[in-house]
């Protein structure tokens, strides 16, 4: 997970505004909890925000960019807002905060397997089992490693007979 030190009231307002922007594809989670906000630099005239795509081809990136520009401009802390999409710091699934994992679970998504750091390439795998976000059972099977969006896989729970999606570890 990503931690940020907040220095002053302006910075606090910027981070609060960013945290309130929902993910366009999974609105239950906000952009800060999802971990897609990288470094934020706040100058007298310019707020500069790094945006880290979960997947390179994520079609929601432009929507996120516009929402960040719109919300931060409305906040009026600086004249200009600049959003930079970057891969210099790659988004990896352990950037999702504990609160974010809980929000995912509550809206029916199994969060990615929790690890202390980014997975090595050889550790990325399609897992046969994921914990059911509805009943907590691990009596589940994978239906499809590729789900309705790039970042999701589809499982089925034998205990509560519910299909569910998992946010992939990447």
């Amino acid at each position, binding site marked *: 997970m990503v931690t940020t030190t907040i220095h002053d009231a302006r910075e606090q307002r910027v981070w609060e505004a960013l945290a309130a922007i929902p993910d366009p594809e999974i609105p239950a989670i906000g952009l800060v909890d999802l971990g897609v906000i990288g470094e934020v630099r706040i100058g007298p005239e310019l707020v500069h925000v*790094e945006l880290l*795509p979960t*997947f*390179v*081809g*994520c*079609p929601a990136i432009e929507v996120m960019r516009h929402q960040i520009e719109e919300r931060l401009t409305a906040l009026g802390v600086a004249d200009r807002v600049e959003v*930079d*999409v*970057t*891969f*210099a710091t*790659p*988004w*990896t699934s352990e950037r999702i905060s504990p609160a974010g994992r809980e929000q995912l679970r509550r809206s029916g998504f199994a969060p990615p397997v929790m690890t202390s750091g980014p997975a090595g*390439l050889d550790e*990325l*795998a*399609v897992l046969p089992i994921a914990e059911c976000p509805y009943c907590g059972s691990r009596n589940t099977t994978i*239906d*499809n*490693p*590729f*789900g*309705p*969006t*790039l970042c999701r896989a*589809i499982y089925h729970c034998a205990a509560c007979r519910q299909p569910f999606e998992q946010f*992939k570890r*990447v």
Partner: protein
Amino acid sequence: MISEPPATLDPTAREALAELILGVADDEFVIGFWDSEWTGIAPMLEEDVATSSIAQDEIGHARALYELLADLTGDDADRIAFGREPDAYRHAALLNHARGDWAFSVARRWLYETADAARLAALATSNWPPLAQLTAKIRREETYHRLHVDAWLRRLADATPDVRERLADALVRLWPDAQQVFAPLQTEEELVRAGFLPEPLRAIHASWQQAVRPVLEPITGTLPPAAPTMDGRTRRTDDFLWLHGQFTMVARSEEGATW
């Protein structure tokens, strides 16, 4: 889109990087469009979703690479993707074939994913940060594609004799063209000298071929010697002309349209 401005590159370096990136981007773009041809008609619903998702990933990778290229050359990513004549595309000959049947698509994807993985491993250590960073991220996503198609290769190889034969025929037919993912580039000497490409493509090719033969030959029998050639990224086929007509259709119908 990428934050690091390539301002310090001289024209020779810029030209070399542009040739390198264009080939990778066109490969991803063209295989993405071929695989999207399965949307709605894959052999089972689960695979329909998976193939469509993989195709979307590939086109997304192509988009990011075209944007990197556009930043480098002062061009426009959409223009590069949709505004070129068929002769100006630089995808490998492996991607000149229509999707064929399911065994053919699995065979092609397996050959492409393994070759792409070898190439991405090298590009992720490029000394030009924007390329290294983007390909490092792409590699993580491609890992899932590779695991998926590898499972399909084994599934078809262990199926009935008819299926196994179709798979073997497709692999043998595509084998020479698969080498062309590593076709020499005109600027390769400069790319290696500058460290943009950590090792020559022929070296990456040799280790790829050495790694895939033991997996393929139990299915196909001994595969003939094969090597990349100078025309590996410039050959065109009627199949590709048809695909080009398809993927440029909307862009051509209303030039300069925005939405």
